[in-house]
């Protein structure tokens, strides 16, 4: 600011009274709106190097202009020019209008913003004038056109820029004024203030304080030489060569400011095309990120088996990074640091109200369009999907498809074997269909033999065949089914369609075809980035229905073949096909084709599966085969696109040596960074040499160990086919723009509604709530680069127990909303800075009215009885695992009980199976022993000897359990019911097959298991059953009409029963009569419940309603109730004051007496009433003493005398005292009943 005041002749602190200046100003022809005509294409020699962030040449600008349809950057940049123009226009008028004009009008008090805006405008005027006044030659040079430069003086020396660096060119310390002149004369815009960072494109400085260094971290801070040199060269030089570096450290290792430069540093600049049109634009060139179309760069990340080159920073593809680190890794995905579209749109309140989180239907719309949401809900829906698929597989729905597989030519024996097994699988006969029965058992025997040939320990692992099946660019290939003409072209799936949005679209790419990937396009990029890499990329829309359909078909096929299945996502699954492969192998052995020894049955099988999926869906699937999950995933990457790959254990070390740490599933960027920092290598071959301890040291214990094993090809994770749902959440971090707390609150409540809906849809309730909040990073612009995205954020989390009344788990939207909002309030964020909100509910429990008191781990998630035979099979299989686990010889398999179904090769024979069935009841017994024994089995003597309260609770518990079986779907009744007779013809293998599918179906079902530890069960608070079982006879015995009883709510039923069954307990039903106050519509009447339950969950505080002093209000029908001491005292005071000359009316006396006596009466009100009555009486006493003090102790003389005298002061006084004593006596009488004696009014 101050540097300007000294600005030679035209200082900025002029006033409007300088007529000469005014005249000069009005006459200025402003050159401000820069027109494209007067721009000449710069000489080729000066074309700067290719750089993303700094597009210096006009040619580049042309490219940008031609592509982007939206010129918001123009608006931004031209703002100042606009100001100038307006001034210019007004300047033509008279001087008084001139004074009224935008810039030179008087600032009103408190309008500092206006003042500053004007000041800026004035300075720009000055600059413009300078440009005119300057020498002609310089004026023609427009090398700085489009730049908006802020010159930051060294703080100690506002006037001079101190250059510390050696100046080769001989220029010495250009002053700020000189710089200003230079900038303005060469077409740039000089900013005196840095109050709008987004406007300024470059900062010129020689020295910065550390705080400023931090502040300008993301801006282009340049030394003044840049300007000087550029002017000398006659063209804009690349600013990167003049980056200001604080102190110019000697060692680069200490953190040279490489910033954006590094990302594309290694690339050879490609000669740009000459502009087809020469019209330059007014666009501020800095905002353009255009680069000439490059030869598509193959990112190393793309090739799955790359040898690890250690690039210092890997580009990350996200459209909305939340951390600085992420942001730094993303090559310009958006054109602006702050999204100008959004900024502009947000100006419009109507738009804001309709499109941001403030909109009433925002959440709904958000979830309608959120791809991630679709994917995540699908995961939940997969349960149904898989169930459907299973049904199809069982009903032979795949039989039609099985014909397809016969089309495959079967040239070799192995192929024929594969076909056979595939046929078997598809036709739903699997291993044990009736027709093949004998065959099957034989086969089982053969397999056993085979297995015995190998070491038992090894067998388990080596024979496991895990396949990782993954669609190749699922969304794209599904979309291409309808669009065959697009095959072979670079295609991406994203929201943004056609040319709208175009080059600057931040729409995220969900999936890219392999042709597109060849250009370097990846999922997660913005469309803009993709367009940059490949301008001809074609976009196709999402087709969620089709994806779902394909997914179903995909799963149906997998289901038919799999022993076990882990659904990873809609287009990706892990299957265990051990048994099928073993059967193929056996088939081969049977055929004894020695020549075919070398074939790989697993790979053939995978190809068969691939062929099936291809036939059915038309999409390609890639399958990776290995003996564990991790290797299968690696293999599938090699298999892609459209292939299969069997990774054999012996190949693992060789493969690993070529991999990088983040090629492993579950290891990402951060693990890579840690490995690089602490171990000095990211290549798995290198890391293989490290000891386990070293890995654990560097990466943490768990990760280190996993890595150590992974490198050696070991992964003992079982397929997670039955993962219980742990949490339900709702996160929204798009479009969150609030203006005040009310909006935020409404939104939080809306989100709570959504969460509640989701909880109810899976019939769950939660006990814990986590609120996740994204808040705009203070350094981030208000509008994020992604349109309405969250931008750079700070993440905050808070957790609170979610407690519904009575300490129950809840899914109630109000309770959730309240909790969430309370947490939100406790953060105390500015609502404007909120960018993302997430509500997550954990500690889920089943929502049925009965709180399932499942105990321990032995409980099976029983299905409802509808399919009793299935349930039977299920328990059988569970039983079999149980026995196997119990078997010490097989103890080593204990760790994998999650795969319930053992492949037939390891299965026991029929006898075992029968035995298992018989063992089931003991299993149940074990379970119930943890629980309470049945009531009939109780040792009554022990029961009687229990302490009173414990016994009562046990009684209540038994009461609860004796509910009608139909109302409760709990496990208890079923466990006690006799097991259905096992089907006699059932074979073990059939069981295995059936169970297999069953288990798979169940895998995605959210299984609720209360998270309370079983030990606390007995005395934990309970929610009681909804219905109470009692015989009609018993009810009649108590004198209760059974029909009436049945109609009562369960709580009442329990209360009534408890009342009659346990007479020792003091009951409300009896006591209520005393407590129940006369119903009244007083202030607190809402607090006194009409019926006092004895509710187990939430007892309500009972307040005795205080007596009130009723009065007629001013209006008719209006009644006033006084119960507070002050109010009553005031009434008394006005009463006494009104009757100073007359004896009190007896009706009034009674009126007050009634109130006071009621207050004192222990049966009518509580002791606070006594307090109140005493206070009122004391006040009355005070008033009487004040007015009639003389007669206080006068003996009450006979009344006749009183009447004779008429209304003298004495008689009035006496009457008052008499009334007082009368009332006092009545109060005493009431009080005596409770406390004895009388009330003291001292």
């Amino acid at each position, binding site marked *: 600011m101050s540097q300007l005041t000294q600005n030679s002749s035209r200082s900025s602190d002029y006033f409007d009274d300088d007529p000469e200046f005014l005249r000069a100003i009005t006459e200025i022809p402003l050159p401000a709106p820069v027109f494209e005509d007067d721009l000449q294409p710069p000489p080729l020699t000066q074309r700067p190097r290719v750089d993303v962030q700094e597009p210096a040449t006009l040619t580049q600008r042309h490219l940008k202009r031609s592509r982007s349809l939206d010129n918001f950057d123009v608006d931004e940049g031209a703002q100042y020019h606009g100001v100038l123009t307006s001034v210019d226009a007004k300047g033509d008028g008279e001087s008084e209008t001139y004074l009224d004009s935008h810039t030179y009008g008087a600032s009103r008090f408190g309008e500092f913003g206006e003042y500053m805006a004007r000041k800026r405008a004035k300075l720009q005027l000055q600059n413009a004038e300078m440009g005119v006044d300057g020498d002609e030659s310089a004026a023609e040079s427009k090398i700085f056109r489009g730049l908006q430069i802020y010159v930051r003086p060294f703080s100690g020396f506002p006037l001079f820029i101190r250059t510390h660096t050696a100046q080769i060119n001989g220029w010495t310390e250009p002053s700020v004024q000189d710089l200003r002149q230079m900038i303005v004369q060469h077409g740039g815009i000089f900013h005196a203030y840095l109050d709008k960072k987004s406007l300024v494109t470059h900062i010129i400085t020689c020295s910065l304080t550390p705080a400023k260094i931090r502040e300008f971290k993301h801006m282009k801070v340049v030394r003044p030489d840049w300007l000087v040199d550029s002017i000398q060269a006659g063209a804009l030089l690349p600013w990167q060569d003049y980056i200001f570096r604080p102190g110019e450290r000697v060692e680069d290792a200490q953190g040279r400011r490489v910033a954006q430069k590094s990302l594309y540093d290694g690339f050879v600049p490609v000669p740009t095309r000459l502009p087809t049109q020469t019209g330059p634009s007014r666009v501020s060139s800095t905002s353009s990120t255009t680069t000439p179309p490059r030869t598509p760069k193959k990112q190393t990340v793309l090739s799955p088996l790359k040898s690890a080159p250690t690039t210092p920073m890997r580009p990350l593809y996200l459209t909305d990074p939340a951390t600085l680190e992420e942001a730094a890794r993303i090559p310009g995905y958006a054109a602006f640091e702050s999204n100008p579209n959004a900024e502009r749109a947000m100006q419009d309140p109507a738009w804001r109200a309709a499109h941001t989180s403030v909109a009433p239907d925002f959440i709904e719309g958000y979830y309608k369009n959120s791809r991630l949401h679709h994917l995540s809900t699908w995961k939940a829906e997969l349960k149904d999907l898989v169930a459907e698929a299973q049904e199809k597989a069982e009903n032979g729905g795949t039989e039609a498809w099985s014909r397809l597989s016969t089309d495959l030519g079967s040239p070799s024996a192995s192929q024929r074997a594969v076909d056979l097994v595939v046929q078997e699988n598809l036709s739903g006969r699997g291993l044990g269909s009736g027709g093949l029965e004998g065959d099957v058992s034989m086969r089982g025997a053969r397999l056993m033999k085979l297995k015995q040939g190998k070491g038992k320990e090894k067998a388990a692992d080596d024979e496991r065949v895990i396949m990782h099946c993954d669609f190749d660019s699922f969304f794209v290939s599904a979309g291409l089914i309808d669009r065959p003409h697009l095959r072979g072209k670079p295609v991406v799936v994203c929201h943004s369609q056609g040319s709208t949005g175009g080059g600057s679209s931040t729409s995220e790419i969900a999936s890219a075809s392999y042709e597109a990937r060849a250009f370097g396009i990846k999922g997660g990029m913005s469309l803009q980035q993709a367009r940059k890499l490949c301008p001809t990329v074609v976009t196709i829309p999402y087709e969620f229905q089709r994806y779902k359909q394909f997914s179903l078909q995909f799963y149906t096929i997998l289901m038919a073949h799999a022993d076990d299945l882990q659904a990873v996502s809609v287009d990706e699954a892990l299957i265990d096909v051990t048994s099928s492969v073993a059967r193929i192998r056996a088939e081969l052995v049977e055929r004894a084709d020695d020549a075919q020894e070398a074939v790989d049955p697993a790979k053939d099988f995978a190809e068969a599966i691939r062929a099936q999926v291809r036939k059915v869906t038309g999409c390609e699937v890639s399958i990776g085969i290995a003996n564990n999950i991790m290797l299968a995933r690696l293999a599938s990457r090699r298999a892609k696109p459209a292939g299969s790959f069997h990774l054999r254990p012996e190949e693992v070390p060789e493969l690993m040596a070529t991999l990088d740490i983040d090629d492993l599933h579950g290891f990402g960027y951060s693990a890579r960074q840690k490995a690089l920092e602490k171990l000095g290598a990211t290549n798995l071959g290198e890391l293989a040499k490290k000891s386990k301890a070293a890995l654990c040291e560097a990466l943490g214990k768990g990760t280190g160990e996993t890595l150590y094993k992974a490198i050696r090809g070991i992964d003992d994770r079982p397929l997670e086919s039955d993962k219980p749902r742990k949490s339900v959440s709702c996160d929204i971090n798009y479009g969150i723009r609030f203006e005040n707390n009310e909006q935020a609150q409404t939104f939080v409540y809306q989100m709570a509604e959504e969460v509640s809906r989701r909880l109810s849809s899976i019939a769950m309730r939660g006990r814990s709530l986590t609120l996740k909040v994204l808040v705009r990073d203070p350094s981030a612009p208000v509008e994020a680069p992604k349109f309405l995205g969250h931008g750079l954020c700070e993440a905050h989390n808070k957790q609170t127990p979610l407690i519904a009344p009575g300490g129950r788990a809840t899914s109630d939207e109000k309770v959730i909303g309240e909790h969430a909002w309370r947490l939100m309030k406790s953060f105390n964020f500015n609502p404007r800075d909120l960018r993302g909100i997430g509500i997550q509910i954990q500690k889920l429990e089943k929502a049925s009215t009965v709180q399932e008191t499942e105990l321990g781990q032995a409980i099976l998630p029983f299905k409802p009885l509808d399919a009793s035979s299935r349930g039977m099979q299920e328990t059988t299989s569970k039983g079999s695992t149980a026995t196997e686990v119990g078997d010490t010889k097989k103890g080593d398999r204990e760790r994998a009980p999650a795969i319930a179904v053992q492949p037939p090769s390891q299965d026991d024979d029929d006898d075992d199976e029968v035995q298992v069935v018989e063992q089931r009841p003991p299993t149940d017994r074990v379970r119930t022993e943890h629980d309470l024994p049945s009531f009939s089995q109780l040792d009554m003597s022990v029961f009687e000897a229990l302490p009173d309260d414990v016994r*009562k*609770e046990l009684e209540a518990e038994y009461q609860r359990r004796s509910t009608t079986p139909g109302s409760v779907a709990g496990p208890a009744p079923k466990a006690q019911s006799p097991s259905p007779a096992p089907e006699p013809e059932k074979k073990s293998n059939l069981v295995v097959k059936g169970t297999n599918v069953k288990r798979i179906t169940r895998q995605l079902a959210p299984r609720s298991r209360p998270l309370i530890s079983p030990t606390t069960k007995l005395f934990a608070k309970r929610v009681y059953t909804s219905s109470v079982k009692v015989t009609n006879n018993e009810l009649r015995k108590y004198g209760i009409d059974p029909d009436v009883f049945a109609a009562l709510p369960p709580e009442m039923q329990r209360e009534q029963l408890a009342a009659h069954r346990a007479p020792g307990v003091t009951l409300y039903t009896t006591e209520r009569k005393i*407590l129940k106050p006369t119903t009244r519509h007083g202030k607190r009447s809402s607090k006194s419940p009409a019926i006092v339950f004895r509710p187990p969950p939430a007892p*309500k505080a009972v307040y*005795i309603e205080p007596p009130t002093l009723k009065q007629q209000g001013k209006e008719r029908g209006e009644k006033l109730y006084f119960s507070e001491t002050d109010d009553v005292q005031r009434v008394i005071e006005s009463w006494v004051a009104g009757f100073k000359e007359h004896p009190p009316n007896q009706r009034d006396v009674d009126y007050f007496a009634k109130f006071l006596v009621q207050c004192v009466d*222990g049966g009518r009100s*509580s002791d*606070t009433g006594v307090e109140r009555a005493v206070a009122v009486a004391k006040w009355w006493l005070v008033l009487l003493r004040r007015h009639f003090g003389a007669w206080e102790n006068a003996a009450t003389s006979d009344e006749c005398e009183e009447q004779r005298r008429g209304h003298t002061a004495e008689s009035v006084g006496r009457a008052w005292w008499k009334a007082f004593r009368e009332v006092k006596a009545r109060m005493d009488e009431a009080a005596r009943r409770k406390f004895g*004696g009388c009330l003291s009014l*001292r």
Partner: protein
Amino acid sequence: MASNLPLTFNHLFIRRKKYDTPVFQSRHPALNEYIAGAVKAITDELALGTVDKVVVVIKSADEKPLERFIFALRNTLQVEPYNKDTSVEGAISAASLGQYFRSFLVKLNMIEAQLGQLYSDDLSFAIVLELQDDKAPTSTQGKDPPPWIPASTPHTTAGAAETAELHMVRAVDTGIINLSLAVQESEYKLNQEREIESKGKQKAV
């Protein structure tokens, strides 16, 4: 040397702070034990929910009641014995209850100014438990005899004379248990007071 002297008030009690109010706390082990025992016995009866009043009677040497400090209780809400730690909707919070207790103590300290002088020297006290009508103390510990014995009638509410004066110190309704503290000056004490006053007046005259 100190042990030879009779115990004084300051030996037995120290000043402490409770609910932000200065109170006297016993520090004599025997007295502590007695107080603990008494409180325990009261607690046991309170748990049964049948207690109506707990009265500390200050009595003269000849067993005449002088002042009765009455803690009157009333349960407005019955909670199952095994469910004692449940939360109650709408009840006074523990924090604000602390404030109420503070006012109990403050007003108890102040009530002395309203009460008449105790002229007897050889004072004693008794703790009287008054139950709801037709309830008997039932809490017993094992085979020990119950800690309570029938009270002498003059010490009880029923035995209080009509002219005894009651000062309500403080009352609070918690929504679960209503509690109040009152001090009652007995007829005997009031008469004694009047006699002494009139004597003093006569002397003065």
